[in-house]
């Protein structure tokens, strides 16, 4: 390959990779008390569906955001539910003694604050807003 073209290609690849890193994507973020815990796809599903009530020994508190596109995409991808279906699923659990109710908030900023201040709290938030929170899983 022509060295000029090669250099150009490499530069473009680096730029694209940097852009991808900077680009926000939905991530499952947790309270800093959950640091060191990484969840695989099966664990994400088990936690989000209340099959697994704790991460480590800490009770999970799910924070649901009203009308968040990141959350919608993440839930659809991992458990095949919309946010509305997810709310209904959880209502069936906590109204019948089968689980602890999630906390509902209006915005991602609010969710970040609740997750930061609540032991065991998790939420699907834009990864760009991960400051001070633990990344449990992305995409």
């Amino acid at each position: 390959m022509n060295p000029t073209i090669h250099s150009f290609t490499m530069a473009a690849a680096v730029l694209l990779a940097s852009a991808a890193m900077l680009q926000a994507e939905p991530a499952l973020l947790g309270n800093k008390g959950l640091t060191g815990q990484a969840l695989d796809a099966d664990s994400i599903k088990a936690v989000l569906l209340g099959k697994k009530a704790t991460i480590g020994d800490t009770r999970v508190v799910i924070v649901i955001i009203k009308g968040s596109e990141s959350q919608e995409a993440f839930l659809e991808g991992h458990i095949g539910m919309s946010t509305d279906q997810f709310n209904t699923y959880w209502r069936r659990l906590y109204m019948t003694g089968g689980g602890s109710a999630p906390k509902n908030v209006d915005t991602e900023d609010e969710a970040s604050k609740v997750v930061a201040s609540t032991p065991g709290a998790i939420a699907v938030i834009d990864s760009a807003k991960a400051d001070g929170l633990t990344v449990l899983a992305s995409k």
Partner: protein
Amino acid sequence: MGSAQAFEFQPFGTNLPPVDLHGFASQGYIYNSGHNNYLGGYSSDGSPDFREYGINASVAYNKWRVGAQFFGQKLGPYGDDQIKLDWGNVDYQATQWFGVRAGRVKTPRGLYNETLDLDSTRTFALLPQSVYDARLRDFNSSFDGGMIYGNIEMKKLGSLDYRAYVGSISLSPLSGASDYFNNDIPYPNTKIGMDATYGGSLFWNTPVQGLKVGYSVQMFNNFNALRTVSPTSSLWRGTSLYLRQTISAEYTRDKWVFAAEAGRDSANYWVQGFGNDFQNYDSYYGYVSATRQITDKFSLGTYFSYSDQMEKCPPYAPFNTDDRQGDLALAGCYNFTSYLLAKLEIHYMNGSGMLFNTPTGATANQPRNTRDNSWAMIVAKVTLSF
């Protein structure tokens, strides 16, 4: 069916977990065309005796959770707005695959038995009555005892949810269950009860996203009732084992939910003075349903539900019965807000096999040969929840 706003308070201080408070209240109306009184008391004239309400509180800390719900209802003559403990238990989940729950526990049976009263989680005002008979709520809803449960991860094969329990159910002669198990002849029960109930359920969350299938079984040990047959005499009628089995499937895809369940109840009754196997009871039932979320606020649903209850009395063949009832329903549900919704449902009923013929009250004087066998039922309901 969005989220409802909850109340949360911290009676133990800010360093300890908060107490979550939730509740609901619904008021309905049932109208049956013709002269059958089915479900809500004198419903052939239209009846508002159709409501449920409950409030629950729970607190969770690490692997422990404690909670309780108080509940009241009126469905025709049943419930009478008396507030009762609906569920109240202590739960310890040791791992994903093993947990224990003890106290008054919701009975796992089929897809929706644990959520009988949760209008905000479904389109229908009435669940398919062949499987979830609203008059049997006292009998179906919960038991006092213990249950083990868990979820077993099977990687590419999905996962298994299991539950197994043992306990007992307290029943009143004034309950719908008492009338249900006394429907062969209209003599009143003065006592009804059982030694124990036990059973479980196994659901496979298949690798197909949104599809689960399952099997539930429930047994009642020494289930019996004392029946008054004349002003001066009573006799016991009972069965050493009442067996109830249900198979279930539910498939959720995009805005659609499809469900189907089928079941069988069976028992051989003895009657005091007439010996064992005096009456053989066999009931087959099931439904298929489909619902679709049309807009964020509005959903539509339909089901066909069918029940066939057979009772054979070998020494007295003329007393053999075969009671059938089909129910084709169309329902609409509109969510005004996340905490307020309204439902309207129209049923075409074919057959009258699930009607009661009780000694007194709205459902008295409904012997089989006087019933309408083709009629319409309209159900409306408004529900508040938080």
